[in-house]
């Protein structure tokens, strides 16, 4: 515990002398106890990562209970799934994690055959006999998947498994209705071959399934831990991951230490240039330049300890980063101009002088304002209601919002598919768009819809979150809408109320955002699939037979030009019908102190902490 504060830096007592008397006095006065400690620490130096978590942090470290990106990050230290992403490769590439090799997929794409590694042990933990972690077997995989179906665990991610594995839905139904949830009861689609081999059979050849297996919700954990800790399991995580959780100050700090029994896993080797001299993957050269391959062949994890600090406010996180107390930080939008020359989105010289490196990370974001298509006035599929929504869409000035609230760094695009995914429009824009602001056109369309200058139109009730920025943005849109005579009634509610209203379909208009779970547009397009209507993920309650048909086709297709065309077609249907106004995607800027090595920021997956290390220059 005493190792992790700044005072452990070895140079403290030495450099004290160089300061003025007053400074020295001040420091001595305040830190007498700290100074006493320094000596013993200097001998051996564990590698300690100090990383930020820009939120109050996860509520639970039980993977099935998690849903947010922050749950993902926290669980990533302790748990592993069957598959994971290659750390440095771009575009994303899956690789086996708990598996010996990638699963074999049958001809029809429905049967997946898995072979587990035989050298995987769970963390040493009192829940096991003798406190020694046992070997991971097939049953653990099935058990972990089944936990997603058990309502008693309050799972947040059942939708990932819904209608996917043969017999799993029935199993869920039966077991939840039964007195006790029986984890031993068989599921037709989960076939155990041996302790290290099994098959999973899908109802349809869903393309997405393979990605699901890399998500943290499907992480494999031992039933002993759940039985032993019961309700407390969510704060006593036991998995197979590279780190053990040492301490958790709820809302403040998570401390992880190296898992001594972690299997031998090595830092990836430099693949070298392809034979034709081209890079083996996008961004390879930069990686080499940044020395990402210097640690090749070393055993993971590289760090001994990770201190993850939660920040409810941005100001302290930013100040702590500037003060070198954090190894990296996201740049809060409000601090962007301080660190960057906005004009070129380049890091300022003063920051470079501090040895800071900037990495922009375009996110797979879909920030939007959605309509309830079942709303009697603003919903509907006939021309008039379509025109009405188009008119409203044309009042929106996303650029204004971008400038005022995101320092102009967001990407504005048409349709629901974020940049970098198949189906994203070229130049971020489609020809027949309804992107605002275009007040004259909006007025015309509004008149055509039967509400000249907004006459006869009831107030549009808009639900948004309580965050000050959301309210400000809503007020901007309200002012713009007023220009064509549409009145908006802004209601800022907490997320719980918003969810409830969405579930009950009582939000005519609402502001939300969707972050893609896996890098495929299908993840965004399913938001408009009719059968997924509220209370499921289709908050718009958008339901068009034509669209639904297309969706059902694409979700079982492998990537192909044919699929791309269908994605574009679905995208354009959405743009024309305007169930949603948008969209924006953020670009996250990461600032990294030079002492943090091997950090390639990524938010879609979070297996990267094991690759990180620090080295004082």
């Amino acid at each position, binding site marked *: 515990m005493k190792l992790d504060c700044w005072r452990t830096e070895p140079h403290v007592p030495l450099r004290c002398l160089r300061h003025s008397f007053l400074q020295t006095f001040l420091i001595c006065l305040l830190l007498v106890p700290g100074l006493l400690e320094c000596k013993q620490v200097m001998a051996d130096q564990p590698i300690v990562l100090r990383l930020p978590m820009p939120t109050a942090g996860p509520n639970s470290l039980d993977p099935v209970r998690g849903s947010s990106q922050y749950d993902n990050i926290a669980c990533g230290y302790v748990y592993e799934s069957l598959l994971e992403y290659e750390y440095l490769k771009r575009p994303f590439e899956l690789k086996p994690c708990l598996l010996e090799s990638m699963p074999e997929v049958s001809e029809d794409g429905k049967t997946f055959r898995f072979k587990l590694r035989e050298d995987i042990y769970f963390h040493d933990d009192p829940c096991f006999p003798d406190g020694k972690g046992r070997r991971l077997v097939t049953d653990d995989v099935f058990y972990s998947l089944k936990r997603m179906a058990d309502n008693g665990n309050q799972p947040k991610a059942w939708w990932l498994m819904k209608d996917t594995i043969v017999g799993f839905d029935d199993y869920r139904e039966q077991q939840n209705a039964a007195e006790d949830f029986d984890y031993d009861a068989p599921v037709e689609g989960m076939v155990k071959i041996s302790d290290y081999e099994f098959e999973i059979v899908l109802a349809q050849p869903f393309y997405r399934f393979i990605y699901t297996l890399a998500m943290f919700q499907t992480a494999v954990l031992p039933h002993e831990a759940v039985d032993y800790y019961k309700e407390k399991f969510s704060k006593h995580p036991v998995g197979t991951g590279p780190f053990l959780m040492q301490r958790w100050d709820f809302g403040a700090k998570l401390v992880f230490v190296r898992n001594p029994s972690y299997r031998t896993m090595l830092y990836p080797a430099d693949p070298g240039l392809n034979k034709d001299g081209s890079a083996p993957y996008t961004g390879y050269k930069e990686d080499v330049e940044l020395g990402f391959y210097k640690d090749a062949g070393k055993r993971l994890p590289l760090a001994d300890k990770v201190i993850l600090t939660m920040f409810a406010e*941005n100001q302290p996180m930013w100040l702590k980063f500037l003060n070198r107390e954090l190894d990296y930080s996201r740049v809060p939008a*409000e601090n962007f101009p301080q660190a960057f020359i906005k004009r070129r989105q380049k890091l300022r*010289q003063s920051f470079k002088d501090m040895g800071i490196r900037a990495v922009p990370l375009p996110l797979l974001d879909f920030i939007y304002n959605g309509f309830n298509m079942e709303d009697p006035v603003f919903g509907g599929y006939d021309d008039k209601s379509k025109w009405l929504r188009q008119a409203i869409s044309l009042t929106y000035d996303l650029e204004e919002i971008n400038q005022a609230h995101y320092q102009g760094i967001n990407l504005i695009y048409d349709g629901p598919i974020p940049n970098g995914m198949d189906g994203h429009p070229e130049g971020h824009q489609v020809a027949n768009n309804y992107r605002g602001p275009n007040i004259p056109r909006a007025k015309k369309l509004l008149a055509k819809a039967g509400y000249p200058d907004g006459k006869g139109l009831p107030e549009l009730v808009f639900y948004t979150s309580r965050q000050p920025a959301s309210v400000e943005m809503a007020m901007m849109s309200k002012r713009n809408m007023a220009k064509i005579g549409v009145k908006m009634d802004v209601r800022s509610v907490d997320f719980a109320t918003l969810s409830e209203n969405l579930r009950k379909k009582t939000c005519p208009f609402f502001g939300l955002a969707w972050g893609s779970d896996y890098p495929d547009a299908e993840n965004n397009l399913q938001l408009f699939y009719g059968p997924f209507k509220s209370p499921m993920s289709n908050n718009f309650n958008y339901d068009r037979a034509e669209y639904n048909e297309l969706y059902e086709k694409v979700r079982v297709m492998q990537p192909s030009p044919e699929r791309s065309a269908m994605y574009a077609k679905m995208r354009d249907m959405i743009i024309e019908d305007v169930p949603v106004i948008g969209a924006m995607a953020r670009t996250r800027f990461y600032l990294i102190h030079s002492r943090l090595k091997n950090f390639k920021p990524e938010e879609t997956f979070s297996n990267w902490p094991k690759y990180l290390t620090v080295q004082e220059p």
Partner: protein
Amino acid sequence: MSMTDRFFKTREFRKLFRNKSAVIAMLVIAAYLFTALFVMCGGITRETCDTVVGQNKMPGFFIQQTPEQRYENATSKFLPMVQRALSRADQTAALADVRLGQERVVNKSAAQLQAIIDRAIELKNELNQSEDLDADSARLPQLKALEDQVAMLKAPLTGWSRLMQNASLVLGTDAQGRSIFLRGLYSIKIAIQIGLVTAAFCVLLGALLGAAAGYFGGWVDHGIVWVYTTFSSIPNLVLLVVLSYAFTDSEVKDTLLPVYIAFGATFWIGTCRVIRGETLKLKRMEYIQAAQTAGFSPFYILVRHVIPNTAHLMLINFSLLLIGAIKSEVILSFLGFGVKGQPSWGIMIRDAGNNGDVVSGFFWEIGTATALMFALVLAFNILSDALQDAFDPKHV
């Protein structure tokens, strides 16, 4: 009327008016009240406060900015607006629509405007080749030229609109480019409104209940003491937040009702306690007994003899509550339970915090809100001190 007249002519009031700092404080308060009245009469509307009047985070007093900021100022608001308007099918209408605070497009033909813009874009591209304008003094003439080009797009301001534009920029702009000065002034109304309503309600309620409890004693006293003990045993913040949470119907309208309810439910207790204590003291006074002997009804005695004699305490409590309400509004707004949909000092301080103003050394918004609030609260503090000195010298 004559009653209040006589009240103001008492020795205590004369003592109050002899206190110089109290008089200055009263003048300051009067100025604030006047501003609040001005705002209330439509002098500054919410729309005005929400209008973008210039570039984001411009410093006040028209302080010269760094070259990079000047570049941002020149390129990011007015220029693209005109550019976009020119690209529209209905150019004239679109051009007429362009506005930034009081600034409008100059009365020139589309072709002329296009020429200016082309030149500006050219300059912009040249400037863009520079790594860092702040460190690149050779580019300054080009920057100046760019600024001149943008200025040529703007119609020259005269008279009132010039005055308004200058006024709205005098203390700079916030992160959205809105006038800090106007928002600060508008917030005076909000603060005064919250302060007055809360203080008036709480003082009246507290005085009435306190006097009744003290005078009648018995079950009335027990009941009232019970109610306020209950309220005061709940942590203040829990009560404030839960109340404003419970009573917010989440609509962003200019209703301050949740704030009133939250403050109203908590702030009356102090007054009630004080007045109850005072009434217990007064009850032993012989003139109350004289009134009883004379045969007045208890209610008459309460209203005519007891409550007027607690007036000084009510006055003092009023000013203390006013301060309390204004300061609590800041905290409540910061936590997101206070004022919504319109500016207030709390909102301004919160925004300044959220927008990283302090960290990046931009103190105009937080400074304005703090200074305006500081002056008002200080004035009220001094006044309430003077009131206490004059009316209740023994009060601790």
